[in-house]
């Protein structure tokens, strides 16, 4: 396994494209986490004005333990970007025909698939850390009374976020292995994510639509409750539902298994 990671490290560590994409993600994510509260409050105020009839409560996102939920939800909106990195680099192995080269030099087809699964794992891990550190720092700055209990109370949103990325990354992996061309695969992924599944979901009853892959992965971390929403009496889930964990894990396993199956019989 270490050898597989080493091989992929050699492939990506000197790719400019990889680092440009990765650092763009890192910077965008960190800036979003640090700036989201300020941003929402100022747009809110400029819309409603200071002299509205009811006092609009300001957003405050960073207090422990809520920061984990708030920021994990925010980060979840950027997962399509990570999926595009996966699709891009996996389909390049087909278009450069380096998959052929890897296999004829002694990699088994399964090892090749494992190396890409590991790529998804490591990328998801990195993204989880990119969520963890800025959130931790913002929480430490903005929380009045710090106790270790309050810091860790809702930390389970991090593994949930990791699972969301793993499941979505497996979906991206599957599409890349299926279509083998980056433009096509990126197009299909974006089309399914932004349009197709929403149309399908529209025609299905809600409890069945919850089993659709993107929906299930997105449901895992529900919209956080803000003071404003409480004002309107809306109340979202503040925990991670077991059903969403199971459905997302099932999709993850299905997508990865499908990739292994695709690679069994095919010419490469």
């Amino acid at each position, binding site marked *: 396994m270490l*050898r597989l990671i*080493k*091989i992929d490290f*050699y*492939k990506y560590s*000197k*790719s*400019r*494209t990889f680092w440009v994409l990765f650092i763009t993600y890192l910077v965008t994510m960190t800036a979003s986490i640090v700036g989201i509260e300020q941003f929402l409050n100022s747009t809110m105020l400029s819309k409603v004005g200071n002299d509205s009839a009811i006092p609009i409560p300001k957003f405050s996102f960073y207090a422990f333990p809520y920061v984990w939920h708030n920021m994990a939800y925010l980060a979840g909106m950027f997962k399509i970007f990570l999926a595009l990195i996966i699709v891009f680099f996996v389909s390049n192995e087909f278009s*450069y*025909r*380096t998959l*052929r*080269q*890897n*296999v*004829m*030099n*002694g*990699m*088994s*087809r399964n*090892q090749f698939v494992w190396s890409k699964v590991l790529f998804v794992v490591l990328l998801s891990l990195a993204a989880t850390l990119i969520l963890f550190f800025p959130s931790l720092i913002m929480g430490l700055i903005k929380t009045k009374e710090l106790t270790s209990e309050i810091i860790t109370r809702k930390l389970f949103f991090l593994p949930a976020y990791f699972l969301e990325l793993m499941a979505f990354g497996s979906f991206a992996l599957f599409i890349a292995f299926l279509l083998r061309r980056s433009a096509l695969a990126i197009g299909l992924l974006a089309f399914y994510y932004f349009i197709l599944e929403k149309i399908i979901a529209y025609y299905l009853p809600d409890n069945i639509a919850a089993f659709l892959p993107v929906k299930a992965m997105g449901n895992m971390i529900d919209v956080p409750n803000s003071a404003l929403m409480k004002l309107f009496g809306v109340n979202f889930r503040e925990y991670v539902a077991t059903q969403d964990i199971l459905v997302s894990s099932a999709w993850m396993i299905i997508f990865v298994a499908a990739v292994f199956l695709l690679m069994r*019989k*095919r*010419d*490469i």
Partner: protein
Amino acid sequence: MTTPPVLSINNLTKYYGKLKALDNLSLEVFPGEILGFLGPNGSGKTTTLGILLGILKADSGTFSWFGNPPSHEQRKKIGALLETPLFYPYLSGYDNLKIIATIKDAPLSEIDEVLHIVGLEERRGSKFKTYSLGMKQRLAIAAALLGKPEVMILDEPTNGLDPTGIVEIRDLIVKIAKRGMTIVLASHLLDEVEKICTHVVVLEKGKKLHAGSVSEVLRSSVTIELAAYDMEALQQALEEEAFVVATRPEAGLLIVELNRKVETSEINRLLTNKGIYVSHLALRKKSLENYFLELLTEQHA
């Protein structure tokens, strides 16, 4: 007792959709052989080699390396070059070989050795996409040499090389072969094959037309070329002789195949007795190229 084959192929068949690219191909390659794998464009050479390297899946038939069913571990001991060089364009030649060495479990110290062998050490740090076609091909050969392979599969290794490069690669192959390595070489450069190979296999439309040793092929018959004022009379006179197998006109000459070695002076005397005076008479050394063309025309006749 005979030594077991390095490679044996049994009844391989491969379809691309409806097209039958390989038709029940069977073949054996023994240790130390340098096998020329010949055939016109589209005859199935690359398809065969792709199957042997685990890249393409055959529809039926089997093959074995060193007497064992195929596995990825075996491929680490096969140096392969298939059709076109396949590398990561944004990585340097050295970094590309690093990936391959890691896949093959070969020490990284071998990389500089193989780069030296193919004469690329000066450009080891340049990105692959900046290489010329010939340099790419050399890098592919370097990659094939990594891991001290016991067998090499080379699909048109001199593709894109300049004349000096072709000679260098030929000498390189001869050098490798002298270490006792077994080589399968697909190439359209027949005089290269003739100079290097010990054995040949000829494919056409996925079928094996012929397999044998090169010396056998070149020894199998003797060919002479003649010219005279009256070419028809010449042809008639020769076809009466028992030692003549076949005659055919070619570019103002008459090409005659004999079933045994007959001295040219003897032929000259025979013809003079028949009142035919030749203006040209020479023994033609049979080349692989002639043999190859004959084989294919026979097939179509």
